[in-house]
Every structure is written in C-alpha cells, then in structure tokens.
C-alpha cells in the first residue's frame, strides 16, 4: 500500500485511527453494485481535525460512517487504538462506539421529537449506567457549555431553533466523553448567521474535551477554517490528502484545483473547469476515476489507477499529471 497509511513517514503525534484499503459497496438497482468507497487508506492523528471534502456522491460521508461500522465496510481494516473495528463483535463494537460519536447535518431530524432535551442528553449516561459520573450538576454544566439555558431542559426539540437543536445534538454526543467526533455537514442546514456560532462552539469544545474531529463538508471555506489536514475525495477514491494549508495553497490534483476554483474568493484560477457530468458510482471510470472530466487526461489515466505520490512533508496526491513536483526522499 502506498504512502498515506504510512504515518511513520511523518513526524506527528499519535495516530488514533488508521483506515486501510477501505471499500464500501451497496447493492444498486437491477443487481448492480454501487461502489461508494473504493480502496481508501488514510490515518487520523489524535487531536487533529481532518476535513473531508468532495462533491455529493464522492463517498466522503460513507467513508466517515464506515469507520464507526455504519455501514459495515465491504472490505478493509479500520484500526482505532490497536483494535480492528471491523472484526469486533456486537458488544465490543457497542462499547467502542461510545468513543466515536457523531453530529448530523439535519439537527432537527437528529433529535427525537417526543423526548425532552434532558432525556436526549442523558441518554448516553443512562445506557451505560454512568449517571454517577455524569451527575445532574455535570449534565447541567454540559448543557450550559453548548449554549443552551438549562432552565429549558424539559422542552421538546420543536421549541428550539435549528442552531439550538444542533447544540443539543453536540451535547448528547459529548455526554459519553468521546475521543472522536464525526461532524457530518454540521452547519450546512443552518442559517449563515448561525453557522459561525456552531463552528466556534466546535472549536471551543475540541480544545476543552481534547477531541479528534472528522469534519465532512461540501463547503470548502468552512473546511479551510476548521481543518488541520484535508482529504479531497472524488467518486469513492482519495484524490489528494495532507496538510490543509499545503493543499489549499498549492493543490496538485486537477480535481482539487477545479473544486477550489469554483469557490468565490479562493484565489485559484479556473483552468479548464470541470467538463461533463459526474460519472455514476455504479460504473466508475477505469484508471483514474477523474479522467473523464480532467482537461489534462492522457491515455495512461484511462488505463492505470494512479499511485499516491508525495508533494510535501504532509501532502499526497494520486495523479498521473500533477500540477506540482513530487518530493523525493532526498529532499526531506
């Protein structure tokens, strides 16, 4: 396996999650197979925020959810703190998942309309019998820390705004003291004036609770704001991964460039914007999956899957014709 799983090449802190050759397939219409994620490898360092970006259907959300085995991957290994999550039995997985919590895109759908805020937030401690750790006083503090007035703890979700519901969802996830928080488009359903509140809140809570975050978003400006490292996905594969500044300032994969040029104010020039339609994940293109829309594509792109090449201390891309010079070991 190439590069990106090999965190030993980088001098960073402790690796918390390692994903190797992750593949997720779903049964599609008429016996076909949806290749949602194909042979994806990466790792997540403790305490960092890894942003995952790409167009809808690129598999960014599925990749993150496959880490917590929802859905269970078709093949591949997901290692979290020395245990392979794909081989755990149901009880072990249940226990392990409390470490890996998630917040959702639609804050309202994420809360049971029939339960009170208090019941929703207390659910985790109640399941695990940790009410003695999560005393009433501590839960009240938690509710306060996400910016909800505890005096409204008996209200139902519909009495709160979208932004407040997202805060409640965050508190629910934190009530199990997780290590990892998967944020699946956490602000895209919110009003612009509320997005910044939630982003700042997540930033504060990350420091306060020492969280490692996977931040999935289609909004590149938001990802740039929150991420230490970034992973750009296209049609179930990683196009480019590495240090956020390095990728946003010097993208080498034509897809990353195209994506960035679509954002107003990105400063990336649009050289041959994406042509054509996103191909179907039922029948993804051969070789480099991006070759059908890439203005730099040549014959080799259609036949051979590009390997990952290193373009910086922490910057990898899978492209036959990258817009940058690879780094060799001698450069290091």
């Amino acid at each position, binding site marked *: 396996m190439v590069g990106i799983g090999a965190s030993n090449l980088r001098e960073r802190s402790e690796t918390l999650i390692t994903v190797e050759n992750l593949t997720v397939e779903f049964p599609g219409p008429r016996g076909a197979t949806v290749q949602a994620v194909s042979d994806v490898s990466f790792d997540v360092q403790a305490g960092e925020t890894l942003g995952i970006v790409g167009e809808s259907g690129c598999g960014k959300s599925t990749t993150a959810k496959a880490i917590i085995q929802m859905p269970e991957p078709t093949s591949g290994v997901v290692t979290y703190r020395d245990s392979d999550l794909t081989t755990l039995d149901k009880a072990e997985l249940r*226990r392990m*998942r409390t470490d890996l919590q998630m917040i959702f895109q639609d804050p*309202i759908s994420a809360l*049971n309309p029939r339960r009170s805020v208090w019941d929703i937030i207390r659910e985790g401690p109640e399941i695990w019998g940790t009410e003695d750790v999560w005393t009433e006083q501590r839960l009240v503090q938690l509710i306060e820390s996400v910016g909800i007035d505890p005096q409204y703890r008996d209200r139902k*979700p519909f*009495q709160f705004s979208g932004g407040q519901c997202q805060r409640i969802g965050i508190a629910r996830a934190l009530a199990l003291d997780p290590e990892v928080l998967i944020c699946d488009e956490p602000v895209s359903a919110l009003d612009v004036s509320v997005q910044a509140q939630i982003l700042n*809140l997540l930033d504060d809570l990350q420091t306060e609770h020492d969280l490692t975050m996977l931040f999935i978003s289609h909004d590149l400006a938001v990802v740039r704001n929150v991420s230490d490292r970034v992973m750009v996905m296209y049609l179930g594969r990683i196009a480019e991964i590495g240090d956020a500044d390095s990728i946003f300032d010097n993208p080498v994969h034509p897809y990353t460039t195209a994506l960035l040029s679509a954002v107003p104010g990105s400063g990336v020039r649009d050289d041959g914007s994406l042509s054509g339609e996103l191909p179907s994940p039922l029948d993804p293109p051969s070789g480099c999956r991006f070759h059908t829309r890439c203005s730099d594509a040549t014959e080799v792109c259609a036949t051979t899957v590009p390997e990952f090449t290193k373009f910086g201390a922490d910057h990898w891309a899978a492209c036959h014709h990258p817009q940058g010079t690879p780094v060799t070991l001698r450069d290091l």
Partner: protein
Amino acid sequence: MADTHEPVTELEAVDAPPPPSIAKQLGLGFWLSSGFVALVVVLALLAPVLPLADPNETAIGGRLEGPRSGLWFGADSTGRDVLSLTIWGSRISLLVGFIAILIGFAVGGTVGIAAGYFRGVFDKIVSFVFVTLLSFPALILAILITTLLGRTVAWVSVSIGILAIAPVGRLARAQTLVFAEREFVTAARLLGASDRRILLKEILPNVVIPMSALALLGMGIAIVAEGTLAFLAISVEDGLSWGRQIQDAGSSARNLQNGPHAALFPIGVLFLTVLSLNYAGDRIREVFDAKELQL
C-alpha cells in the same frame, strides 16, 4: 477584526412563548366526542346497577309504543324497553370492538413495528402475510371462525380482530420505517442503545400517536363489523348487542314502518359512538401531525 474569544452562550435566545396546551389544541369537538364515548362506556359498565328494566322482559310497554316519560326510547315489537336494550346491547358491542382492536394492535402493531425496524427476510414474510390477510374474504373468515369455534364474545372478537391485524400492522410498519431512517435512531445506536431500547424509547413514542388515532377509528369499524355479523345472525349467540337489536327491529318492513324508533335509537347511538371515535382519532392525528410539521 474578529474577537479572539467571545462567549458562545446563547442563554437568552429561547424566548418563544410555550405553544398552547395540547388539550386546547385538540378543540371543543374532540372533548365533546370523547365525552360522548365516555358516557356510553360508563353507562355500559353501570348497566347492572342502573334502574333499568330487564332488557329481556317483554310487554314492559305496548307493542312498538313510542317514546314517552319513563320509557324514553319507547318499546320494540315485543314491548321490550328500547333504552334498556340499547344500554345492555352496548356492553357486547363495545367489548367486541375493544377486544378486536386489542388483538389487532397486539399482533399487528408488534409484528409491524418489528418488521419495519429489523427489515430483511422477516419483513418480507410479514409483508406477504399482511397482503394475504387483506385479500382474504373477510366475511367468509368470520363465518368460518364463528361457526366452527362458536359464537361467543371471544371468538367473535377474534374473528374481527384478525381482520384488524393487517391494516394496523401495515401502518405500524410504515410509520416505523419513517422513523427508523431518522438520524436520532442512528444517534441512539451510536450511544450504545440496544435494539430493545431503541424500539421502546425512540420508535414507539413516535409511532404510538398515529396508531392511537387508528385505534379509535378501528374501534368504530369493529363495532360496525360486529353489527354486520349480528345482522347476518353470526355474532354472539343469544347476546344482546346493537347489531342484534337493529336486526330485531329492522328485519320486518312492517315493524320498521310502524315503530321506526325501535331501530332508530340503537342506530343513532351506534352512529354517534362511531362518529365520535372517528372524530377524536382524527383530531389526535391532526394535532400531532401539525406538531411534526412545525419541526
């Protein structure tokens, strides 16, 4: 430009006044219809201690005598007290309606929710059984059960209850499917909730409201169904029920012409009871659906 560390609190933000109480939202109509149903139920329960004439005693009044003071609903063709007949008859009608719906919900509701939640092969089998049940001729099923097993309250209720299983089960399954997809179920699973806990705490409270509306509607339908069976003389043997009473009073065209009140009173009470049940069920559904829509 940006503050480095502004407080994230939003403590004063929840300032919307609490919505009007559920009781108020349900409206006067709901309480009137519930009140009527409650009255019918109480009268049915208290029938033995109420100062009523023996419903089986003939010649209490004259043949097809019209309503008058002391004989408020008049008398039927054998001179029995129609008021007493109606109140005593409500006992079997309500009981059969209640047990039938209980069976429908116990079996259909449980199986439907389980099918919608667990999906897979179990769901396929259950859905097939529901479709089969729905296409089975209802009347023939009822005749089979009552003639083979006996025309008792229990078997009449069972025969109607079986018919309730499929519609109830299909609604339960459909509702469960809707909520099982919602992210709060994913969240609960991530927190470590067991299937049992998810079904009880996350799914059931959401499914129970549309189901309770259906229960009220269904009870109305079951009472009418019992009436139909009684009319066909395959309901509870020798038992008094509204259906039986209507059949007795309405089977002869001449009796119907000379003393329509003997049939009209039980028909009216039956009609009002079923209407009230339907209306109450509808209001529950509307109020709680509207609350969903506010989300």
